[in-house]
C-alpha cells in the first residue's frame, strides 16, 4: 500500500536538539547528585534516555493513522487507568499517582497526557468546518475535563494543568472563534484570579496547594517554611550571575539548598552553575525544539498529523513555561518537571513517546 519511510525522512535536526538538551540534563544531574547519597543518578537517567530513544523509533514506525483509529479506545483505557490509580495506586509524596507496570512504578497521568494528545488530534481532525462550533468546543472541554478531574483527585495539579493547553492549542488551531476565545479567556482569568483569592480558593484548592500559592506570592515571609523552595531557587539562579559558579561549584546546589535539584528544580541548579550564558543555551535549545515542532506541524501531510504534532508542542511548551517560570519565582510550585532535563522515568518516556508521534507524522509527510 505504501512505501516504508527511510532513515532520511527522520528529522535529524530535531534529534540533535533533543540530544543536546538531554546532555545538559545529564551533566546537571551528575553535578547535583555527585558526592551525595543520590550519586549515580545520571547513569540511571541515561538508561531512561536510551529506552526512550528506542520507544521513540518504535512508535514512529507505527502509522499514526492506525493509532488515531484507536483514539476512543485509548481514551477509555486512560480513564479506567486513572480510576484504577485512585483505588490501587501507590502513594508517594502524599499523592496517589503510581501504578506498578513490569516491576517499575509508572505515573499513569504521564500516559494519559499522551492519550489526550492523540484523542484531541482525532477529535479536531474530525471537525469539518473551518470554524469550531460551540457544541464541539463544549464537547471537547467535557471530554478533557473528565480525566483532568481524575488527575486533580490524585492530587496532581501540575499534570492536570498540562491538559488545559492541549485543549486550548487544539481549539485554536481547530478554528476557535474569537467570541468563544474571549469568553474562555475571561473564564480562565476568573479561575486563575479566584485561585489567588483566598476566600474563593479555600473551596477550590487543597491546603497544600493554597500554601504553595501563598508562598509564591510572599516567598520572603517565611524563608524556612513554605516559601523556602521558591526563595532558595531564586537565590541559586540570582547568585549564578552571568557566567555562573562553574560545574559542580554551585553552593546552593552542592549544599542542598535547592529543593529536588536533580528533578523539578534542575534549571535552578543549571542556572546557578552555568549562569545566564548557560540559561541562554538551554532556553535557546528549548526554543529551537518548539519551533522545530511547529515547523513539522506546518509540513504535516494532513490535518490530523498537524494536530498530533501541535499537541506535543503544546504539552512540551507548557512544561517548559511552567517549570522555568517556577524556577525564577514567577509561578507557584506545581510539580511539573522540565522535559528532557529533569530526572525521572515516566516523564522522560512520555517526552520520547510524544516525539515518537512527531517523527511518525514527519516520516509520512510525502507518503500517500
Amino acid at each position, binding site marked *: 500500500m505504501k512505501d516504508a519511510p527511510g532513515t532520511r525522512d527522520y528529522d535529524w535536526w530535531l534529534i540533535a536538539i533533543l540530544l543536546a538538551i538531554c546532555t545538559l540534563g545529564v551533566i546537571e544531574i551528575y553535578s547535583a547528585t555527585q558526592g551525595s547519597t543520590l550519586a549515580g543518578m545520571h547513569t540511571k537517567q541515561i538508561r531512561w534516555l536510551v529506552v526512550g530513544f528506542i520507544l521513540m523509533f518504535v512508535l514512529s514506525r507505527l502509522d499514526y493513522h492506525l493509532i488515531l483509529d484507536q483514539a476512543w479506545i485509548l481514551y477509555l483505557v486512560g480513564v479506567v487507568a486513572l480510576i484504577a490509580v485512585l483505588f490501587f495506586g501507590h502513594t508517594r509524596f502524599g499523592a496517589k499517582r503510581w501504578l506498578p507496570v513490569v516491576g517499575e512504578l509508572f505515573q499513569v497521568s504521564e500516559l494519559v497526557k499522551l492519550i489526550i494528545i492523540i484523542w484531541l488530534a482525532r477529535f479536531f481532525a474530525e471537525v469539518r468546518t473551518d470554524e469550531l462550533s460551540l457544541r464541539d468546543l463544549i464537547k471537547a472541554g467535557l471530554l478533557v475535563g473528565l480525566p483532568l478531574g481524575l488527575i486533580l483527585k490524585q492530587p496532581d495539579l501540575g499534570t492536570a494543568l498540562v491538559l488545559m493547553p492541549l485543549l486550548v492549542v487544539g481549539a485554536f*488551531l481547530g478554528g476557535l472563534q474569537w467570541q468563544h476565545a474571549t469568553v474562555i479567556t475571561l473564564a480562565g482569568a476568573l479561575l486563575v484570579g479566584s485561585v489567588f483569592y483566598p476566600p474563593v480558593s479555600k473551596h477550590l484548592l487543597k491546603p497544600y496547594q493554597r500554601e504553595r500559592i501563598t508562598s509564591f506570592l510572599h516567598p520572603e515571609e517565611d524563608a524556612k517554611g513554605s516559601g523556602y523552595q521558591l526563595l532558595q531557587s*531564586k537565590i541559586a539562579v540570582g547568585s549564578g550571575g552571568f557566567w555562573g559558579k562553574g560545574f559542580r561549584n554551585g*553552593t546552593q546546589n552542592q549544599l542542598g539548598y535547592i529543593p529536588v535539584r536533580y528533578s523539578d528544580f534542575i534549571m535552578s541548579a543549571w542556572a546557578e552553575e552555568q549562569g545566564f550564558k548557560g540559561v541562554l543555551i538551554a532556553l535557546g535549545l*528549548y526554543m529551537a525544539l518548539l*519551533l522545530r515542532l511547529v515547523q513539522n506541524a506546518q509540513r504535516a501531510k494532513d490535518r490530523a498529523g*498537524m494536530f498530533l504534532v501541535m499537541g506535543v508542542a503544546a504539552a512540551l511548551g507548557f512544561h517548559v513555561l511552567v517549570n522555568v517560570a517556577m524556577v525564577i519565582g514567577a509561578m507557584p510550585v506545581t510539580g511539573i518537571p522540565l522535559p528532557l532535563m529533569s530526572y525521572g522515568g515516566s516523564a522522560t518516556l512520555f517526552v520520547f513517546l510524544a516525539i515518537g508521534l512527531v517523527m511518525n507524522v514527519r516520516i509520512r509527510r510525502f507518503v500517500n
Partner: protein
Amino acid sequence: MSYSFRNDNRLPQARLAVVSYVIVGMIGLLLIGFWKLQVIDSDKYSQWADRNRIRSIPVIAPRGRMLDRDGRVLVDNYPSFSVLLLRDDPTLVLKQLPMIAEGLGVPLNDLADQLDNARELPKFQPIVIKPEATPADVAFIESHRSDIPLLEMLMVHRRRYLPNGFMAHTSGYVGEVSEKQIEDSNGKFRPGDFVGKTGLERQYNDMLQGTDGMRRVIVNSVGKEVDRLPTQEAIPGKQIQLTIDYDLQQVAEQSLGVRPGAVVALDPRSGEVLAMVSRPTPDPNNFAIRISNEEWKRLNDDPLHPLLNRTIQAQLAPGSVFKIVTATAMLEDRNPPESYTSFCPGYGTFYGRQFKCWVFGKKSHGTVDLKEAIKESCDIFFYNVGMRLGIDRLSYYGGHVGIGHKTGIDLPSEESGLMPSAEWAERVFHRKWYAGETISVSTGQGAVTTTPLQLARMIGGIASGGVFKQPHLLKDAQNVGEERFHISESTTQKITDAMYAVVNEGGTGGSLKLAGVELSGKSGTAQVIGYATRERFGKQKKFEDNAWFVGYAPRRDPEIVVAVLVQESGQHGGTASGPVARDIIKAYYDKKTKKLDGQITADGKGFDPGKTAPPATAIQPVLKQSGQAVTVPTRARVEENRR
C-alpha cells in the same frame, strides 16, 4: 465510522505562525526573568547565597592589658566560654528551647526573654544565652552536637582585675555595651559587645578594645558544618602602660584600709599619677561577666556610694588645706604684709558673728605669724587674712591654683569642685556675696569644695613655684598639659618652709616625721556641717569631719605629693590621713634608695614593658620581692600612727 479524518489537508498556516510567535515571546519573557535575577539583582542573591551557607561565629579580640610603670600586669584577661544560640531556624529554636533550658540550667522564661530582646537583630546573628559556661555546659553542648545543632561555644576573654578592688576606680570596669553607646558608636559596637564602662577602661576603650575576628564555616542546608573558610583573625587590643606604681598603689590601698576616703599620689614634676585609691570599692571582677540587677541596685543604693571615684568625684570642703591658698594670696598681694600677726584666743568675732578656731575650748594659739598659723593651722589668723583680702582675691588665687577647674586627668566623669566668688553668688543664687562667707572660705569651709586630685595638684604646683602639670595615668601621654601661675620665689619659700614645719617642727603633722626625708604638708579637718548644727544633732558618726592631709617631699620642687582624704573618721587630718601620706612617701623613698643601690634591678629586668610582660599570675613572686623593698604597713601600725 461515518467520517474519515484521513486526507484532510486543510492546515491553519496563519494560526500555526501565531503559535511560533507565542513560543518566541514566551522564551523571551523567561530570559528577561533570568536577566533580572542573574544580571541586575545578582549581587543581592550572591549575598543571600553566602548568608545561607556561611555561618559566622565571632572571634573575640582580647582586650589590651594594663601595666604599671615598671611593666607589671595590673589588669589582664582569662579565657572563658560563652554559650551562643544560633537563631537561623525559628521553628527549631522554638522546639528545642525547653531542652536547651534544661541542659544549661537556665530558666525557660529567661531564654524566651532573651530571644524576645534579640527579635530586632538579623536572624543569622547568634546571641549569647549564657555568658559563663560551666564544664557541665560544655559537656552538654559537645554531647548534643548532632541533635541540638543550635548551640555553639564562643571563646571570650574575661577581664581579670587584681582582687579586693585593687585600683578598681582607676581601672574602671567593662560591661555589656548599652543601647545608647551602640547608637553613638557609628556601627562600631554591636549588641553583646563588652566595652569599658568607667575609669581607664572607658577612657582608653578604643586602644584597649581591639577588633573582633570572624570564624566562618560552610554549612549545608541542614546546618551541618561541611567546610571551613579562612578565619579572620581577631586583632588584640593594645596594652597600655600606666604611670601607676604597683608598689605605691599597694601601700596606698593597705594604708587607707577599709576607711571611706581617697588617696592620690602624683609626681608634680611630670603630672604622673603614682597611686590612686578610692574607698569603699566594688570588686570589678563582678562586673566582668554580667552583673545581676540586685547587685547593681545594692551598689547604687549603698549610702557610702562605692561606685563614686572619690579621687576625682568627691567634692568636699578642703578645710585647712585651703589655708595654703589664703597664705599664697596674702604673700603675693602683701595684704596684710608678711609680718602680720594676729592673736588667737580660740575664737574671733567677724561681722558680728563668732567664728571658732579648731582649738576652741582646749587651748589658744596666742599671737601667731604666718608660719606659726600654717604650722598650727590657726583659724583665727586666716579669718583675719581672709577678711582683709576679700572674696575676689581669694577666688582669684583659688581659681589659679586649680580649685573649681577640672584637672584634665585622663579619666571620665571628673568633677571640678567649686571656688565660690561674688560673681558665683550672683549667678547661682541671685544674691550679693555675704562678707561673713569670706571668713569661712579663707579656711576652706563654706561653699568651697575640691577633689583630692585637685588638692594634690594644687599643693604640688605651689611647692614647685607655680608650675601645675596635668595629672595623667597613661605613661606615654603626649602633650601633657601644663599651667603656670607665677608665684614669687619668696612666697614659695615661705609657704614651703611653713609646710615643712607642719611635719618637722612640731606642727599638726608632727607625728609624721620621716628620717632622711623632707616630708612636708598641710592637714585639714573639714566640717561636714557647721559647729552650730552639730550641737543640735549631737555627736553623730555621719557628721564627723573629713580628715585631709596633703603631704609631699622634698620640701621644694617635690618629687611626690600625696593627697589623702579619710571621711568621717572623727579624727583630725594630721592624725587620720597623715600616716597614709607618710607611708606612701616612705615607700617611695625606700624604693628609690633600693633602686639607686641596685637592689631592685632584678625586678626591673624581669619586665619589658609593652612587650613581654608576664601574665598576671606572675605577680605573686614579684609581690614578694617588692615586699622586701617597701615597708607595707599593717593595720596595726596604722592604728599606732594615729595615736
